[in-house]
């Protein structure tokens, strides 16, 4: 990591953390969402720095481009009375603090186990990824013991992480991927069923009916006698 990358990392990480703090600190909920978007954006920048460009772009497309827009939509249209909200604030403090402490402990456990883990194992683990798709030319390793490490280094240079991710996602984790898809589908169907109501009063445009209509069904020509009316 050279000086420019290091500088970029500190800028992105600093802005990301600061905007994450502002999400909970700012008084205006719309500002909170805008800070959240800034945090997502900087997280995407961090992904680019570690070479995970696919994840970075997907983070921007999905979270910033779609999810946060809907957040913003809802928050802008809500009519929130801030004074009222602040009154009952303290009664949620114990629950909030508990959740916060649990999250903190979990993060510390994960971070601690990662920091203490044996690095040689971590380096060798993605070698299984290489086995999935042996299409790319892999340099012949000099010794049997170093196969995994050498193969992985060569692959990382020659295969984009989009291909890498696809090769793993659609083979090893295929069932989990399908299950995630099914869960999302159920969520969509559920959300639609909850909000869909039959409103008999509203007039809907039925394009098929409009197209099928013929002139003789709706227009009638009558011969009107003078001074007689219809």
């Amino acid at each position: 990591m050279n000086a420019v990358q290091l500088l970029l990392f500190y800028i992105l990480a600093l802005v990301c953390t600061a905007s994450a703090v502002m999400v909970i600190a700012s008084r205006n909920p719309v500002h909170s969402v805008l800070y959240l978007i800034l945090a997502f954006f900087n997280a995407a920048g961090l992904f680019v720095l570690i070479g995970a460009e696919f994840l970075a772009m997907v983070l921007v497309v999905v979270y910033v481009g779609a999810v946060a827009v809907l957040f913003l939509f809802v928050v802008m249209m809500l009519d929130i009375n801030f004074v009222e909200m602040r009154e009952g604030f303290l009664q949620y403090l114990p629950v909030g603090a508990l959740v916060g402490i649990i999250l903190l402990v979990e993060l510390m456990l994960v971070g601690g186990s990662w920091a203490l883990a044996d690095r040689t194992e971590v380096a060798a683990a993605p070698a299984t990824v290489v086995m999935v798709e042996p299409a790319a030319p892999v340099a012949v390793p000099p010794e049997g013991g170093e196969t995994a490490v050498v193969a992985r280094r060569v692959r990382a240079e020659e295969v984009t992480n989009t291909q890498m991710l696809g090769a793993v996602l659609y083979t090893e984790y295929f069932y989990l991927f399908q299950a995630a898809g099914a869960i999302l589908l159920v969520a969509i169907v559920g959300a639609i069923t909850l909000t869909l109501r039959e409103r008999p009063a509203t007039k809907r445009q039925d394009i098929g009916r409009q197209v099928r209509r013929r002139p003789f069904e709706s227009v009638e020509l009558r011969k009107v006698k003078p001074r007689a009316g219809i």
Partner: protein
Amino acid sequence: MAEIWALVVIVFYILVLVVPLLLGVAYLTYAERKVLGAMQLRQGPMTVGPYGLLQPIADGLKLFMKETVVPSGSNKFVFVLAPMLTFILALIGWAVIPFGPGLVLADINVGVLYLLAVSSLGVYGIIMAGWASNSRYAFLGALRSSAQMVSYEISIGLIIINVLLTAGSLNLTTIVESQRGLWYFIPHFPMFVIFFVSVLAETNRHPFDLPEDEATLVTGFNVEYSSMGFALFFLGEYANMILMSAICSVLFLGGWLPPFGIVPFTWIPGPIWLILKICFFLFAFIWARATLPRYRYDQLMRLGWKVFLPLSLFWVVLTAGVLVAFDLVPR
């Protein structure tokens, strides 16, 4: 020292890209007025300079001299930020557009996704402007616009997946190279048409310009903007049109490739071909504006969700099926 030098070179490249682009935006407004004029049997701008050629510059100067009005009930910071965001987003997409083999500012692996990300961010400029103005018309325009852009992005994404499947890469240079011999608008013709229509909706252009519907919303999200704020929105919209035309050309019309790889066509350099293709799409944008009446909002949503989405989803399955069945999957 070497890093500083690299930075200077990059800034120089950016200027080489952005300055002609801004000039192009200025003359796109001129072209639009001239073409509309010709289609409506009028002259268009004709008094400022020969053939009215200095009209865009006069317009720019006029906007520059106007007073900037910030409404007193507005959210000042967001109000000022919104037009800047729109303008910047319309420019940064150009970083990955290839003008020829190697003629690209950033030849990244995920070029298509980058463009999709940039275009999905475009909605923020509009929604922030609408909300910060603290005005009903502006807010309604912003809501319409964001719903519209989010809806049509889905079909755009699915159509792009077709191109990616056929090209086997997310890199724009590779996508163009893989079109040598057969431009993708031939095998993917229905998708090409849907893509162009979705782009019209995505850029809020006629016949889908409901966010700035004069008849019902005055001018929608930018009612409260004057002077440079308005100018930035205006430039952003037109720069976005050019960017989207470039994306269409790269994905479907073979980017910088000449139509036939034989002598009189190969004499013309690649960037000129790309610019010609962009001009073709821009003409189609203006042509649609002159020809088609505005859609009704519910019909717009119906078109996006009930027609384009199923059709493009079907086409993805078809493309994948054909590629696998005939063993055409790119390696």
